[in-house]
């Protein structure tokens, strides 16, 4: 009897704890969104998106330069990471023997778990020291962040392709690569795109690697990728260190 009661109480207790945890998670997000939105409301306007940053001390201005810069950075990073990521996944699922695939898999998982600031410092040492900060360096850092995400997501969807389809194609006397190209990729292209979009979203919000690689930028719309590109995450970071309250308002809008 008492056992039965105990189990019932434990069950009830755990249910309550789990529910509270879920509510806390939602509450944190809600507080962040509401508090940022409330303070930022004043700064959001058409100009905010279409005008570059105002000169120091002057009112007004927007984030157009950062917006354009971020889009450029992410596009370049995607162009670098997508082919490498997808081909890596194809190699791992379709070609690699097990004893090769497993270590590569581990390396990719480690890369995915690497703090992004480490990647930032790495690219800084590789491409920035001795040269200048540049959009390319920034994009390269972002590409390193995106690569494991894309490879992982692609691998998952490739594994979902039924092996009977591979067999069907190979039994026709078709080579593996043509099988991948003609049967496996078309079947899984939707999943690959989803994975890529998630990786892009993740990379677009990264600050740390860009601080090292693309943070000293002009206040104008800038599209020359060999120079540092303005971008939203770094803009937010910089403004947070400024004393001007107007800039703080803009930062929150970003």
């Amino acid at each position, binding site marked *: 009897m008492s056992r039965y009661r105990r189990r019932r109480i434990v069950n009830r207790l755990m249910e309550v704890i789990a529910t509270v945890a879920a509510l806390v998670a939602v509450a944190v997000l809600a507080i962040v969104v509401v508090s940022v939105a409330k303070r930022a409301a004043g700064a959001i306007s058409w100009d905010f998106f279409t005008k570059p940053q105002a000169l120091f001390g002057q009112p007004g201005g927007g984030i157009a330069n950062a917006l354009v810069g971020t889009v450029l950075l992410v596009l370049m990073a995607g162009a670098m990471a997508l082919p490498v990521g997808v081909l890596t996944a194809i190699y791992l699922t379709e070609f690699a023997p097990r004893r090769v695939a497993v270590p590569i898999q581990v390396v990719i998982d480690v890369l995915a778990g690497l703090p992004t600031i480490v990647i930032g410092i790495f690219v800084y040492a590789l491409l920035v020291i001795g040269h200048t900060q540049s959009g390319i360096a920034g994009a390269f850092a972002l590409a390193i962040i995106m690569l494991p995400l894309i490879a992982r997501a692609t691998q998952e969807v490739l594994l979902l392709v*039924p092996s009977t389809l591979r*067999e069907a194609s*190979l039994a026709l*006397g078709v080579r593996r690569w043509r099988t991948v190209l003609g049967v496996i990729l078309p079947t899984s292209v939707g999943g690959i795109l989803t994975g890529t979009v998630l990786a892009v979203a993740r990379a677009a919000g990264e600050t740390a690697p860009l601080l090292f690689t693309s943070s000293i930028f002009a206040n104008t719309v800038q599209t020359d990728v060999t120079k540092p590109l303005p971008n939203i995450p770094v803009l937010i970071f910089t403004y947070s260190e400024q004393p001007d309250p107007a800039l703080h308002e803009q930062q929150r809008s970003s």
Partner: protein
Amino acid sequence: MTPVIDVAQARKDAEPIEKNDVVFDIQKLTASYGKQPAISDVDLEIYRNVITAVIGPSGCGKSTFIRCLNRMNDLVPGARIEGKILYQGDDLYASGVDPVEVRRRIGMVFQKANPFPKSIYDNVAWGPRVLGMRKDLDGRVEKALRGAALWDEVKDRLKKNALSLSGGQQQRLCIARAIAVEPDVLLLDEPASALDPIATSAIEELMHELKRDYTLVIVTHNMQQAARVADMTAFFSLDVDESRRTGVLVEYDGTAKIFTNPGDKRTEDYVTGRFG
């Protein structure tokens, strides 16, 4: 009680089997996954334009056997074979033989219909297109679909997705896809096991048609089916020795002989349903 399988009736009008032209000469074939042999010491000759059935209980290595014939087992990690398979005199497993080329000449249809998620037309056309047989692709597709007795049912909706077809139609589409690249041999691994009786009989009729142009090897666990379609039948059984279970070829002969007057007690037990 009358026997379930009236082989004498089924084979009444069967022509005598031409045994002059050997397509596969299988010598002492042992195939293993890892250390465990799945089939051992199989000796068998398969003849041109003859339907050869491979029957036997589950797990006796029928599928393993047939998959050795077009080197599909190469794709299974740890699969190994010993012995020889001579295909028209050439060793299929000799070094320098390209398994892709082997599969190109020896086609295969699987247990579960596995059309590509493409249109009906593209399913059939894809193989020839990739293999460089681009001349008169439309004609080739029509010929393959007619060959698989599917043309009349699909000629008005070639652009529709193949997955919209019924199970039996999908399996015939897979046969069409296999014959579109004009192989010499067609291996069928339980092609009708997932189909209803009507679809099954359509496939069986089709096999009789295909026999004229192809050498057919069919794995089936449906004895009636073997009795209906096959000219030659190979009976595989399990040799249980302590913990090892190995498939062995028990008997290989004309289908009528296997089903009415088998030479081995194990064959008799199996075909009369007393197995186990």
